[in-house]
């Protein structure tokens, strides 16, 4: 029977092979996507393990010997540069990171190959100056990706001590567990489930592609005496030919595309191709599951048919789907809300409730698949009521008569839209969780600021001011204002006009008395000033007295001053001359330098290079690099976005495959119609209407449902509820347009297959 099945599948002529090839190709694409999906977690794990040596340390006990380590994130242009500064805390027993062979001495550095290449490319005063002299290369096994910019720099111990660097006795070799907030973990679970559903739909749809031709063959077999059971077995064998070839093709596609996928950055870093690999157990399970889906699909198809010796007939149409199909959707929605509420209250183990939420979300997706035909049928009936032309009539009747089939064609897109809408809603919430370090800079601005550490000074500001292309450098001392032993306000000890010029706040007015508040802060009174930074050296901090008379502190005002400046500017700008002892100002450490340049990127890099060389712990932002976002949500958002793009593209492919299959099943009618004068544009209109109308209508409903689910999840999880912005409509609209574009790609071959000259074959 197996041999006969193989012979029927493979020896059916060019058409049969083409159908088989199309099915196998679609299965291969779906399999490859699933293999990449399964590779994601191992790839992240492998990457984290490779960089664990600089992310996680064995900290030395108080007073113990070891290595002083400080890690800084820096930039070269738009590229991330990780600087790992090392110094032996004592003469011996200073462990060396596994990334390098020997402890670099101050001024020496090991660099990654990509950084070495970039250093050779850029002038020394733009990059090499902050790295030092290169004495070796960081091992590949200690880099997150081939193009990662990393430097391990030998540094004077005192500099690192001043920064408060960690003394370590060892370096981690395994990645620390990702510490995600509960809602982030939930989002990851839900995103994973949401993304995989359309892939499964795609694979299942693909296995239907050559079914019509297969059914005719099987009818012929019934004529010569094959039993229904034998016919079913033959159908399974034929389906397995396509899925096994497809699965194998999927592995080949996976291997072929892995180097390209590895170039897609996540967290500004690409991948080592060989780390993108699923666990063998999961990979084998997947390949078996694809065969199971193919075999099950063939059997389900056979159940819907009566293959008699005289031909193939579809079973009598099932009753029209009823509105009761919405019930499971409501139930699974409530179950999802309940699971999230239980997760939040912590009354049950997190793994149980998280798993429950995942299952409930899967239930919502399944319920959409169940309720979809009812809604699709409704759309078909409404369309038929208002149909005017022949194409609309044909499309509406088709949709209304076979809502299950019509929904099957769009189910992949519908589920993707649901998942996308839910996550757009999550995204609004996650953005509200991000910590923005706003760096408001004019287009030609550079800012350097210190957290801990030292190195910024008036001298450095003067030196920077002397660089070619630099038009100004303002040293700023960040201070706290204390009264009655309590912290009252945050201030900058600097010249107000110079700050206003450095920030490009044209038209802003500084108070004549030297004390200017921003946005109307009330700082009237007498204050003690102290440095607004942590001094880890134990030195006595400087202090100064400031008397602020009420009438002397007009608010900084400027026409068109950005409203969000309040989060960036201090509450008060204090000119040193306003202090009781103006000379006391110089005792305060410079913690920021605002620089203006001619705006060229080269000058910006030169400034950054000079500052980092003098103050390795300084953070330098050149021009407006955009807000620095912290927290795990950005990462998750990016993962979700990548997943969604892939999912929606795949869903478009599903739609194209389904439309092709449906049209081929009705090829005979279309050939007759076109022979009788139906134009090619009429055929195109019919196909596009048949796919497009239910797609847009049901996708709209799905998007609304997705937003409701997203809002409900955020609300129950205790987040701030906010509607997604217009970008959601834009992205979803564009995605649907892409889906329809993919469908339109099927039109030329369908036109050829249904051209009137094919009539002689009918």
């Amino acid at each position, binding site marked *: 029977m197996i041999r006969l099945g193989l012979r029927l599948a493979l020896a059916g002529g060019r058409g049969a092979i083409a159908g088989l090839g199309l099915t196998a190709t679609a299965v291969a694409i779906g399999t490859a996507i699933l293999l990449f999906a399964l590779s994601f977690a191992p790839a992240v794990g492998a990457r984290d393990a490779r960089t664990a040596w600089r992310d996680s340390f064995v900290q030395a006990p108080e007073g113990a010997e070891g290595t002083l380590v400080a890690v800084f994130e820096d930039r070269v242009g738009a590229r991330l540069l990780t600087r790992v500064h090392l110094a032996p805390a004592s003469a011996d027993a200073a462990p060396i990171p596994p990334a390098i062979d020997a402890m670099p001495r101050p001024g020496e550095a090991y660099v990654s190959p990509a950084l070495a290449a970039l250093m050779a490319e850029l002038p020394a005063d733009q990059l090499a100056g902050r790295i030092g002299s290169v004495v070796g290369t960081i091992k590949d096994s200690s880099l997150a990706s081939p193009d990662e910019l990393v430097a391990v720099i030998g540094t004077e111990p005192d500099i690192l001590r001043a920064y408060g660097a960690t003394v370590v006795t060892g370096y981690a070799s395994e990645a620390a567990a990702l510490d995600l907030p509960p809602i982030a973990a939930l989002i990851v679970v839900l995103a994973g489930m949401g993304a995989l559903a359309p892939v499964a739909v795609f694979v299942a749809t693909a296995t239907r592609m050559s079914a019509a031709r297969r059914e005719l063959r099987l009818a012929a077999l019934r004529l010569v005496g094959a039993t229904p059971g034998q016919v079913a077995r033959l159908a399974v064998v034929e389906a397995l030919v396509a899925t096994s070839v497809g699965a194998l093709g999927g592995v080949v596609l996976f291997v072929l595309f892995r180097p390209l996928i590895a170039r897609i950055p996540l967290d500004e870093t690409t991948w080592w191709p060989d780390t993108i690999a699923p666990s063998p157990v999961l990979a084998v399970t997947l390949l078996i599951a694809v065969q199971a889906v193919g075999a099950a699909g063939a059997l389900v198809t056979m159940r819907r048919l009566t293959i008699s010796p005289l031909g193939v007939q579809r079973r009598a149409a099932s009753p029209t789907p009823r509105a009761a199909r919405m019930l499971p959707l409501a139930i699974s929605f409530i179950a999802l809300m309940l699971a999230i509420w239980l997760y939040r209250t912590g009354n049950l183990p997190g793994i149980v409730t998280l798993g429950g939420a995942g299952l409930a979300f899967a239930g919502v997706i399944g319920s959409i698949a169940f309720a979809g035909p009812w809604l699709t049928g409704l759309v078909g009936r409404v369309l038929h009521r208002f149909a005017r032309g022949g194409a609309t009539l044909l499309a509406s009747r088709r949709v209304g008569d076979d809502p299950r089939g019509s929904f099957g064609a769009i189910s992949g897109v519908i589920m993707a839209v649901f998942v996308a809408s839910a996550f757009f809603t999550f995204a609004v919430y996650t953005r509200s969780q991000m910590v923005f370090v706003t760096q408001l800079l004019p287009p030609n601005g550079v800012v350097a600021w210190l957290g801990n550490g030292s190195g910024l000074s008036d001298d450095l500001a003067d030196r920077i001011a002397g660089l070619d292309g630099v038009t100004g450098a303002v040293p700023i001392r960040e201070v706290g204002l204390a009264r009655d032993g309590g912290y009252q306000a945050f201030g900058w000890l600097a010249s107000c006009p110079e700050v206003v010029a450095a920030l490009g706040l044209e038209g802003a007015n500084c108070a004549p008395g030297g004390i200017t508040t921003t946005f109307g802060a009330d700082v009237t009174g007498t204050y003690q000033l102290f440095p607004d930074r942590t001094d880890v050296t134990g030195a006595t901090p400087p202090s100064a007295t400031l008397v602020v008379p009420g009438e002397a502190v007009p608010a900084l005002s400027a026409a068109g001053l950005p409203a969000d400046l309040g989060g960036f500017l201090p509450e008060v700008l204090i000119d040193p001359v306003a202090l009781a002892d103006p000379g006391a100002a110089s005792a305060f450490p410079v913690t920021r330098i605002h620089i203006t340049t001619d705006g060229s990127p080269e000058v910006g890099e030169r400034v950054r290079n000079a500052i980092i060389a003098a103050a390795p712990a300084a953070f330098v932002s050149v021009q407006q690099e955009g807000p620095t976002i912290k927290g795990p949500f950005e990462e998750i958002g990016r993962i979700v976005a990548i997943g969604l793009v892939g999912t929606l593209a795949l869903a478009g492919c599903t739609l194209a495959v389904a439309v092709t299959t449906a049209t081929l099943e009705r090829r005979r009618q279309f050939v007759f119609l076109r022979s009788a004068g139906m134009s*090619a544009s009429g055929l195109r209109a019919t196909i596009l209407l048949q796919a497009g109308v239910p797609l847009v209508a049901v996708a709209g409903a799905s998007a609304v449902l997705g937003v409701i689910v997203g809002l409900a999840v955020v609300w129950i999880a205790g987040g701030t509820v906010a509607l997604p912005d217009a970008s959601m409509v834009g992205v979803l609209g564009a995605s649907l347009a892409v889906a329809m574009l993919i469908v339109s790609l099927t039109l030329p071959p369908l036109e050829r297959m249904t051209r009137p000259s094919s009539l002689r074959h009918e």
Partner: protein
Amino acid sequence: MTFLATPPATSSDARSEPTRSTSTPILTAHGLHKRFGTTDALRGIDFSLSPGEIVAVMGPSGSGKSTLLHCLAGILTPDAGTVEFDGRRIDAMGEGERSRLRRTAFGFVFQFGQLVPELTGLENVALPLLLDDVSRKDAEARAAEWFPRLGLSGLEGRRPGDMSGGQAQRVAVARALVAGPAVVFADEPTGSLDSLAGEGVMELLTAAARSAGASVVIVTHEARVAAYAHREVIVRDGRSSGPAA
């Protein structure tokens, strides 16, 4: 282009008084050649059809009679030779123009399976008009007029799957005639019917076409079907052996 504005009244005996028109041919073909791969389906056939004339194209299976019909109807373009309809070269037209011609000037009846299963009888008959941008209301009104004339009353709302083979073929005849064609092409129109139903369909087809002034080209290998025609053209091995005109 509409050649007939109103549906005709049917004749009680379509076979009576078969007369041959002697007016200028409405459809002519000269020296038609058509090859599929290594097979010559047509080898220089000439053909002509006068207004109101009914011609049966006969011949054994594989003789090329369907290919001839497809070339005459602009479904296939011949490799050599010309096909003229109403003074215009069909073989030189683009597919779009030929589609328009088939939609407006020709009607088609095939052996079986030509009705759209999702549409009702009325919608199937109205379809050519809808495809020609006639409003749905007008199209269905015009389609509805054909049902009593072809003995189809009560079948307007039925789907093809709920009709007998003979009923479905009569609906196909109505669909072929609804747009007022100048020529109806029928390819084995009774091939899937028993003799009684086949005769019923042929009587209705020829009578309706005659009273509508439409010419008919019938491809058949059945002598009793050919008997409804004014003239027979025999095709054998891609050549015609009967009178060309």
